[in-house]
C-alpha cells in the first residue's frame, strides 16, 4: 500500500530558529514529490522534486529528495511568525494519484 509519513507531526520554535521537516514514502512507480504550505485555506504549492540530490530553493525555504532512501526534507532558516502553517508532503505516482502525508504543524513564536 502506498503511504507517505511526515515527522514530526507538530513543532514549536522561536523566530530565528532553523527547522527541518521530514517526509518518507513508499510509493509504487514514483514520479515526483511535492511540498505544500497550508494556512487557513487551500494548500499553496512550494516545491516539486523529481531528481535525487538536487536542492530546490526559494528564499529561506529549501528542499531536497533522496530517491534511494525514499525521503525528502524541507528546511526553513531564520523562521518568522508568518511561517506558521501546516506543511504537507505529497508523492505523485505514474497513475496520476497524489498521496498526502499527515502534515507537520509548525508554530513559530515571536
Amino acid at each position, binding site marked *: 500500500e502506498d503511504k*507517505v509519513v*511526515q515527522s514530526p507531526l507538530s513543532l514549536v520554535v522561536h523566530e530565528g530558529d532553523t527547522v527541518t521537516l521530514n517526509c518518507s514514502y513508499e510509493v509504487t512507480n514514483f*514520479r*515526483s514529490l*511535492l511540498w505544500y504550505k497550508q494556512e487557513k*485555506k*487551500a*494548500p499553496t*504549492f512550494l516545491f*516539486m522534486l*523529481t531528481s535525487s540530490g538536487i536542492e530546490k530553493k526559494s528564499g529561506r525555504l529549501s528542499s531536497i529528495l533522496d530517491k534511494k532512501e525514499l525521503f525528502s526534507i524541507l528546511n526553513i532558516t531564520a523562521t518568522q511568525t508568518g511561517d506558521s502553517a501546516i506543511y*504537507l508532503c*505529497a508523492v*505523485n505516482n505514474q497513475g*496520476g*494519484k*497524489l*498521496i*498526502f*502525508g*499527515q*502534515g507537520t*504543524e509548525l508554530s513559530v513564536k515571536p
Partner: protein
Amino acid sequence: NAGVTQTPKFRILKIGQSMTLQCTQDMNHNYMYWYRQDPGMGLKLIYYSVGAGITDKGEVPNGYNVSRSTTEDFPLRLELAAPSQTSVYFCASRLVGDLSNQPQHFGDGTRLSIL
C-alpha cells in the same frame, strides 16, 4: 484568472439529505481530484478523473459519486449525508502529459457540516 473555483464555501446539511459540491477550472487541465481533510489530518483522495468521461476511486470513495462530462467541471455528490462526512472538501486540478509534470492547483475548499 480564476483557477479552480469551488462552490459553496460553507454548507450545513441534515442527516440523509443530498447535495452536490461544484468544482470548475478554467486552465484546461486534464486531471481533476476531490479530497477531504479532517481536523489535524492530511488530505485523503475521494475520487479523481484523468479526463472527460473517465473517473476513478481514491482512498475513501464510499458515500460519494462524481461525474466528468466536461473538462472544466468535476462535481462531487453526496446522496445520503452522514455525520462522518463532516469535513473540508478540496477540489484540485493538474495538467499531466508525457512531457508535463505540473503541481496541483487547489480550490479554496468547501466546509461541510452534517448534523
